[in-house]
């Protein structure tokens, strides 16, 4: 897989862009994602409560939980889209309070792909690449590869408003990984995809992780997590109630030999209930 690089040749002379340097340019063995007692409350409601976790660089972390468990809020906290009520965290060595420094290190696919309907997929992805500081040739090279792999090349010049849900999802996913970020947060990345596309996505994520990208994967599709995740966390009512590798989770609970992650999930969430 081609590794795109961000063109920052004009950043040094950029008069509109004299931001401080990122605190960590190279991973130095520290966790890719750290959360220390993250808590988020909305009035009387606690969406995330005292969440503490660590995710290793280059791993695929499956973040599971029932509806309303606080998965999306956790991702929003880790991507600095919302401020924690308590606690702290860091992504790729950058404190999550500093979104300006974080933007160079992360990619994010929310549940609803953040794309402009009036652009074509090619325009949207070129736009995103430009925002990330990638030069035109790097964008084109990476784009062609992703469009081909996700079978969207033929439709890349149609406006997104004409796309099906799956095509939009593919566009959003390509956008999240286009610039080869250090950490990519994916909220239901296989939602709306046909089995063939879902398999391609799984392969893509595995390749990303093999090349050093950390994947934080929030999903309800447990077989996806079971197949590709190196670590799993189960969130329930805003708290992280179980974590470990899929094997550890299967071993540590009262499950039979042919148990699946679904059984673990049901057992953990039922016990907690």
């Amino acid at each position, binding site marked *: 897989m081609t590794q795109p690089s961000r063109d920052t040749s004009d950043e040094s002379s950029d008069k509109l862009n004299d931001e401080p340097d990122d605190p960590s340019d190279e991973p130095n063995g520290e966790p890719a994602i750290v959360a220390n007692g993250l808590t988020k409350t909305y009035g009387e409601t606690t969406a995330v409560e005292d969440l503490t976790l660590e995710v290793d660089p280059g791993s695929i972390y499956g973040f599971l939980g029932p509806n309303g468990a606080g998965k999306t809020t956790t991702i929003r906290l880790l991507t600095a889209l919302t401020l924690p009520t308590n606690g702290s965290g860091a992504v790729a060595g950058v404190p999550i309070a500093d979104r300006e420094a974080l933007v160079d290190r992360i990619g994010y696919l929310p549940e609803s792909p953040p794309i402009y309907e009036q652009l074509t997929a090619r325009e949207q992805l070129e736009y995103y690449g430009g925002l990330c500081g990638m030069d035109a040739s790097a964008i084109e090279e990476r784009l062609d590869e992703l469009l081909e792999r996700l079978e969207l090349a033929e439709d*890349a010049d149609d406006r997104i408003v004409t796309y099906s849900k799956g095509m939009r999802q593919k566009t959003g996913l390509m956008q999240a990984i286009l610039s080869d970020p250090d950490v990519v947060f994916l909220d239901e990345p296989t939602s709306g995809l046909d089995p063939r596309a879902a398999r391609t996505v799984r392969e893509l994520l595995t390749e990303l992780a093999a090349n050093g990208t950390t994947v934080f994967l929030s999903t309800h599709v447990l077989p996806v997590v079971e197949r590709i995740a190196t670590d799993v966390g189960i969130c329930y009512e805003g708290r992280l109630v179980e974590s470990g590798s899929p094997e550890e989770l299967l071993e540590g609970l009262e499950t039979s030999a042919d148990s699946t992650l679904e059984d673990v999930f049901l057992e953990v969430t039922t016990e907690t209930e």
Partner: protein
Amino acid sequence: MLDGWLGDGGRIARIEWRRHDREFGRSRGRRIGLVLSYCVVAVVLGSGAWVVGDDLATTEAAPSAAGSLAVTLAFGWVVVRSASLTHRRFEGLSSDALLTAVPVRTAVLGLVSFVFARVGVAIVLPTVGVAVGLAVGAGTPWIALSAVVAIAALAALAVAVGVAGRLAGSLVGRRLARGGLYRNLLVVFGWVPLVTLWFLLRELSVSAAELGAWLEWLPLALLVDLAFLGADGTAGVEPLRALAAVGAVAVVVPALLGLTTNVARRLWVTESVGSTRSTTPSHSRSLAGGGRLDRLLGGSVSRPTRTVARERLLAERRAPRGLLSTGYVLLFVALVGLPVFGALLGTPGFLLVVFGLGVAAGIVFTAEPIGSAYRVLPMLLTTVRGRQFVGGLVLASLLLGVPLVVLVVVPLGIVSDASLLETGALAVTGVALCACTATVNAAIELNVDRADLVPVSGFVTDGPVYSEPGWGAFSGLAKSFGIVSLVALPAFLGNARWVYERAPALGVPTAAVRLGALCCTIVLAVGVSRIAFRIAVARYRDYRLE
């Protein structure tokens, strides 16, 4: 069956009423304010009606010309209001769910009932005021009854015209490739012919009486006869014309409602997919860079900033949403700038043109940046820094503003008696005002909470867009306009004849005063721009999706 049809329509109208109330967040204070304003209107109209009624009793002659003018104005207001309400609710009707539960005619009945109810509530107090005023003035209660019937007929007709007209406009915009463009131009610049007409009537010294006399020829004047029918024995009121008014409304309103159902069916069912692959162009314009913008600014402006600017230019080209705000700005300049700065301060027209161009160009790309990027905000906030985003908006504004100002100011400077230096200073002033407007408006608009935005059907797009409800968007524009007007004030004052003509007496050349005033505004604009830019960047940096 009929009961079910009517009942379902009523239910839809009630739900739309509730949704409308919640979307547009009517606080208790605002409700009270609204009722008080209706009371004031009722008192004002009631007083006018009392005078008319008193004249009726004295002269026994109906003021047909004045009545025709009043009826035409009221009719126009209700049509515009109904069209606006229809526009807001049509897209939000959840047609997929609705049309799998009820027939199209029921859904249309719900929509039309909602508009009737909203307009009805708005006119009830003014109607009472007029009816009571007429009855007291004329000394007969029957005129109150005939006036109420006439106002109800006028409202029914105007609502039917407003709803049908708005939906027909949407259909034209959807079916004809050029129709959408013409619809947009009409929405954005439709006020221009009205303002021109207003100035023309003033120039021709046409009195209200003369205008009313012309309007008497319109069919709407039949409603004046209906309104005054209760004043028995009044000259100029023909019962036959009054009856004709009732008959015409009884025929035209159902016909328009039938047309509305037909048009809505086409919009919802026959041509429900507005943007299909067959109607949407398949073509990408490069946003990756490498074009003229990169060659021009590649060394001094970062790639993300250039990309933000490039995307804004492309988005505006495809759905000219910012152009709508430009229309409002030009309206501000025409209605506020011309009378206040032109007439009162004596600011020359040339400078007002420069001001209008600068402000309009500055508004286009900074109007509602949160609403424009509503869907992509999670991506933007996790990808671009504040300086890059705000810089991109300002860059897009300048890419429009600089050529626009130069192309207009230089030829005007050549044909006018302005010196070369003065023309140059005016051009720089225009560009500085453009940058100032862009930064100030960005700073104001980036203070908008995403949660406060609601989906509204866009004038310039087929789908809904996210915008502040009610007067929120206008208040932001008005603030920007106010701040930039203050920045331009030194230029306005220094170029007013009554100011610079006194300068020679004080030993200061006239040209120095005029140029100095322009320079003062340029310096002020640069200073305000820098402050506003910092505020905008900080607001973007601290923006959270709570």
